[in-house]
């Protein structure tokens, strides 16, 4: 049969596309590392690629990433979930309550369950009752904050190390260090060699005192990518976000997939809450997520509704957060990184023939360069703004390239097929 002939060409087309995606991903990573390394050497701000900084960046990134993954799951099924913040808060409470009573592993499950409960509420409102997704999300955020504050006061006041607004001393989860490798990489990191030391810093961060939850999150990211793009379950789930009527006409139970998606979404946000209460520090306080749910959503958009894109964006936000807290002075060096990045991107756009956008980008890049050259520090307030400003800039510059699922945010009613 001639099918064999077609068979050969088709996968290669597919493979080429996927390969291309990963190639750009790696290319961007490489450029970032080189730029950081250059800037480190030029400015002497060793902290910007120190293993410990990167480790802290990963820790800061994890809750954002989990929220982002939560957003990804629901939006891929067509449900916008800005209730992530509230679900994350429910997760912080669940983690605290269940860890205190049953230990940290049950705590993780409890956090996911509380988050999923918030997801269920969102699902009921948006799927069954067809309420606007943003409206429901806003309401869930109000409920999430009120409920965790109320429940904390009701339950934690009488606990040991507890109070109406906090519960500390929760049992932690284990860490993993790769023996040998970790130390070797760290000393390599200290050498200050071009690129090699920086990469060693990154690898050291990945092999030193890594929380099992961080590993779990890495697994979640990979699993998400695999489930959504390589299983029939994922195909069905995504079809609900692209064209639910078509999915239903082919026998897909759209409501069920949307519910699964929004439950997973809430559960992941809840896990993000657990990360804050159990791993990032060992204690619960009220309103602990403090906007990380929203940043997770921003990371997902920034990452173009793609798990690895979301990972990259979360790491970026986590990195600026960690650097701001650990070495505010090194933030100044980042100005140079931004300037180089923008100028490089401008050159690339120019090469592609997009003159005006290249000029705009180039001017912004030059402004950053001037800022770097004429100052010694960045006002500390501004470093705190980084994730927000970066998000706005990315959206402003790249919104045309972003591609949300076609039926994202639309209310779908059963029986609309045909």
């Amino acid at each position, binding site marked *: 049969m001639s099918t064999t002939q077609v068979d050969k060409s088709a996968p290669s087309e597919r493979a080429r596309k996927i390969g291309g995606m990963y190639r750009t991903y790696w290319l961007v990573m490489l450029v970032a590392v080189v730029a950081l390394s250059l800037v480190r050497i030029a400015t002497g701000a060793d902290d910007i690629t120190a293993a410990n900084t990167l480790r802290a960046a990963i820790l800061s990134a994890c809750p954002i990433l989990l929220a982002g993954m939560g957003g990804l799951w629901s939006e891929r099924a067509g449900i916008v979930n800005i209730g992530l913040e509230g679900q994350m808060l429910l997760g912080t409470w669940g983690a605290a309550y269940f860890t205190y009573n049953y230990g940290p592993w049950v705590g993780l499950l409890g956090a996911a369950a509380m988050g999923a409960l918030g997801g269920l509420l969102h699902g009921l409102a948006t799927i069954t009752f067809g309420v606007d997704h943003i409206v429901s999300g806003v309401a869930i955020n109000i409920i999430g904050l009120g409920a965790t504050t109320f429940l904390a006061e009701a339950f934690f006041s009488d606990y040991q190390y507890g*109070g109406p607004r906090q519960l500390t001393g929760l049992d932690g989860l284990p860490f993993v260090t790769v023996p040998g490798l970790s130390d070797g990489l760290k000393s390599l990191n200290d050498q200050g060699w071009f690129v090699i030391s920086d990469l060693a810093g990154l690898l050291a961060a990945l092999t030193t005192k890594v929380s099992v939850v961080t590993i779990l999150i890495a697994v979640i990211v990979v699993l998400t990518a695999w489930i959504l793009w390589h299983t029939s379950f994922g195909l069905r789930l995504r079809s609900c976000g692209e064209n639910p009527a078509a999915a239903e006409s082919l026998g897909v139970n759209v409501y069920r997939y949307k519910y699964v998606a929004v439950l997973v979404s809430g559960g992941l946000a809840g896990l993000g809450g657990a990360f804050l209460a159990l791993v990032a520090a060992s204690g619960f306080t009220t309103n*602990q997520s403090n906007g990380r749910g929203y940043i997770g959503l921003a990371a997902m958009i920034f990452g173009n509704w793609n798990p690895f894109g979301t990972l990259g964006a979360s790491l970026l936000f986590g990195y600026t957060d960690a650097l701001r*807290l650990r070495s505010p002075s090194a933030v100044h060096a980042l100005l140079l990184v931004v300037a180089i990045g923008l100028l490089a991107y401008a050159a690339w756009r120019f090469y592609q023939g997009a003159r005006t956008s290249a000029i705009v980008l180039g001017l912004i890049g030059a402004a950053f360069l001037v800022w770097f050259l004429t100052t010694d520090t960045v006002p500390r307030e501004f470093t705190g703004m980084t994730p927000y400003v970066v998000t706005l800039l990315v959206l402003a510059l790249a919104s045309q390239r972003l591609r949300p699922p076609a039926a994202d945010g639309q209310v779908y009613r059963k029986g609309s097929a045909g």
Partner: protein
Amino acid sequence: SSSDSDGGDKASDNTSASASASADVCKDADGDGPKIGLAYDVGGRGDQSFNDSAYAGVAKAVDELDATCLEGEAQDAEPESAREDRLRQMADAGANAVVGVGFAYSDAINAVAPDYPDVNFGVVDGFDPDDKPNDNVAYFSFAANEASFLVGVAAAEKTASKQVGFVGGVHNDLIKGFEAGFTAGVKAVDPSIKVDVAYIEESDLSGFNDPAGGKTAAAGEFDKGADVVYHASGASGSGIFDAAVEAGDGNWAIGVDSDQYLTATADQQPHILTSALKRVDVATFDFIKSVADGSPKTSYVTYDLKNDGVGYSTSGGFVDDIKADIDGYADKIKSGEIKVPTAP
């Protein structure tokens, strides 16, 4: 003097009170002493911090002065009118001593006090926001910089790496005072010791409520070589203690406001060198007593080393060996020989 051991004792009173928080003295008190209104800041009783400390002062008053009490608690983002209303409800219910915990009550008390000339008000950390003096209001201010100085001395004496750290919750004037005192204390012992300074937030009060941020900031300082880190960051402090635990043996954290050794977890306790004490309980009790005695305190009342309003704690016994040195500095401060700066 024995101000410190004294402090330790009182602090343990304070925890025994908060540990039995559910016992709730205000519910059962039925003496015929003064009637106290206690208006908590956000967090309320059980916050293991200055709300609890104020409660301890009231509990002591119930115990020793046959006082009765009423409690009210602030909510996040509440309107100014809610604070005023809370104070008025207390005054209307017959309280003759009303204490607002936290400077956020300054404006509300200034507005309410003139309507209740027979009631005496007190504000922790408070001040009169306008130029009309209120003759029935006492403003308690604490020389937190002096307490910070003393723990700075402790940090300087204990550091092996000649590097210590400070983590502030929010970069505002109040916390800058802690930083200034701490740095001065460290430098007084050895000017060559390096002090790393970090703040969790610049102005957003969520910096007092972010253990993860606190841990990241403190871990940064430990990673860079500090082995003692002092925090003034409210509920974020548990993150600083966690960072000390993770940094391992020989690394210390210093607590703030109350004796945090007593409320810390078993893991954290071996790392809590000392705490800078701000005796809100003393201020509260003194104020109530002054009302009961018929000579109510008014206007600015400063609590400092001299009147035991601030100090440091010794629980855990980690500073026993350097106690004499610290007390020596305390005496110099009391005598005015050392002037502790209030801003960095």
